[in-house]
């Protein structure tokens, strides 16, 4: 579907266009404020972040990012004076607050876990999904409709309900808190989306192309590989990004089935705390880093979004 091309309707009047433009721009600006606030907070100092009234203009600081990547402990001025001079920028910032850096925080490993699990499961889901979608699109599969509906229905279960038996199963298999376990689980959840979306894309590729290729002596597999796949790349790319976004954003499974080794960023970010409650600049910094890839993908995907979010039910 396309958001840009105008079709020649009974053209709306200029006034109604203007009113619409004003309302939409106002809504867009208001709805983007929380995100801008996250970005701004990530560059505030802790006191600035909790100032009243909220500060719109402030002296930018990277303290939030320093705090995001380190753990710190408060010490007396005498203790700090006894230490060798600060070696890094973050060291200096921290010591100004009468604290010393005790070590790295867990944010980086969690972020890496997010990358591994999201990309790993996306790869598996798209791989399996492409094959299955081709199968459903081109062959007479017995009970195809039931199977397809069954694939979809797996997404209707509340994640907590799914997590109960998965927890027990993974405990028996030793997959608790492992990247492999999470990749398997996310693949299973994503493959339903992948099959439905890709089936739509492959349905759109005329069968005649393959049939012509097979008359030319290609086998079925060769025709799939050399004719269908190249035509489906756009669809596969869009599907991959949707799977990636799901796996990247997923919270409930990660919160219940991982505890450290394989924990991803979403359950970790809400647990970034300072000396008291949440260290908001650090949380904002982590959130910003976490959101940037998704923003890029959203812009890339904007023309495929509709199809992705409706499981291919709405194509245009």
């Amino acid at each position, binding site marked *: 579907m396309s958001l840009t091309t105008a079709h020649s309707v009974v053209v709306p009047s200029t006034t109604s266009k203007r009113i619409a433009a004003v309302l939409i721009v106002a809504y867009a600006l208001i709805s983007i404020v929380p995100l801008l606030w996250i970005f701004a907070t990530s560059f505030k100092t802790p006191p600035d972040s909790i100032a009243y009234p909220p500060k719109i203009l402030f002296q930018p600081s990277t303290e939030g990012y320093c705090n995001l990547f380190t753990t710190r402990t408060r010490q007396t001025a005498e203790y700090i004076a006894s230490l060798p001079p600060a070696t890094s920028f973050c060291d200096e910032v921290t010591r100004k607050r009468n604290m010393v850096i005790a070590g790295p925080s867990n944010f980086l490993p969690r972020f890496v876990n997010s990358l591994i699990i999201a990309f790993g499961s996306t790869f598996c889901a798209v791989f399996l999904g492409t094959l299955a979608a081709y199968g459903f699109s081109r062959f007479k599969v017995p009970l195809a409709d039931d199977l397809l509906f069954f694939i979809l229905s797996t997404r209707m279960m509340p994640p907590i309900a799914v997590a109960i038996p998965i927890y027990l199963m993974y405990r028996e298999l030793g997959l608790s808190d492992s990247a492999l376990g999470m990749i398997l689980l996310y693949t299973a959840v994503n493959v339903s989306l992948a099959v439905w979306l890709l089936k739509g894309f492959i349905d759109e590729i005329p069968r005649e192309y393959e049939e012509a290729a097979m008359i030319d002596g290609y086998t*079925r597999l*060769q025709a799939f590989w050399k004719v269908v796949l190249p035509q489906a790349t756009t669809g596969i790319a869009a599907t991959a990004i949707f799977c990636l976004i799901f796996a990247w954003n*997923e*919270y409930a499974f990660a919160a*219940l089935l991982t505890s450290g080794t394989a924990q991803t960023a979403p359950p970790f970010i809400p647990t970034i705390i300072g000396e008291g409650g949440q260290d908001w600049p650090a949380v904002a910094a982590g959130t910003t880093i976490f959101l940037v890839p998704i923003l890029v993908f959203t812009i890339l995907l904007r023309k495929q979004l509709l199809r992705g*979010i409706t499981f291919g039910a709405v194509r245009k």
Partner: protein
Amino acid sequence: MIDTKTSPLNRAAEAVARSTPSRLVKRVTGLSDRMVAWLFIGPTMVLLLAINIFPLFWAIGLSFTNYRANRPNEPVESVGLRNYERILTDPDIWIAMQTTANFVFWTILLQTVIGFGLAYLIDRKFRGHAFWTTIILVPMMLSPAVVGNFWRFLYEPQIGLFAYAVSFVSGIPPTEIEMLSNVSLAPWSIIIVDTWMWSPYVMLICLAGLRSIPDYIYEAAEVDRASPIRQFLSITLPMALPFIMLAILFRGIENFKMFDMVNLLTGGGPGSTTEVASITLKREAFEKWRTGYSSAFAIILFVAVFGLANIYVKALNRVKQR
């Protein structure tokens, strides 16, 4: 059109084919369609059986026992239908179900109204509408957990931007806008964030609906001198209805499952004001570790979603056929 002859994938495939012994290639690539079909669909089915179906049956089995996942050494006893009986007669569970239903109702109502309104406005096709549409779409792509967590900060009574903005507009002192701790405001704090995130979703689907209405219908209405309001009520709304209903279906299923945002914003509080079914289930299953009991609850929830969704889909199909 895409040039299949020179695509890199194609060349890679040929290179692989050349380097494989030709007899093997024949054997692998010359499979019958039936074989190919099973080869292609099989792995997905196996995965779904292992990760979805097998655990589901396991859960069904557990739901008839008193099993607790944190007591591996204790004997597991069959309790028949007692878990189901206990859940269905527990007033707290029914309160949680009501809370869930309230959330689903209000979020869907607001999101449909706002989403359809936005779609209708965007369909006016003013200059730059594509750009602003993309901006509006951003919130729904983000992680509800990570962004929901940040909303807790925005909701802080004094230092939070939301309280400040509301007090700026309404004149109520910002210390009195206790979105997360006031019993009557807390549900709204979640509804607001959910609506903020997901109205764009409804908007996108409604937009497709509005664009699917052929121009000639409006042209005919113009000829009949139907007023704009009449046109809206007798053309726009009914023709877009299947799309609106589809959006409601997807949002309904999602919001019935709602966990992330509630867990991070209020954790079910104050008291049990915002304790939706998923939160209750999480407490039973992963804090009290009443695995058998919570499995029964999970099955009940699953049957409820599945049943409601099926009824709804039937209604949707009827509307479509009209």
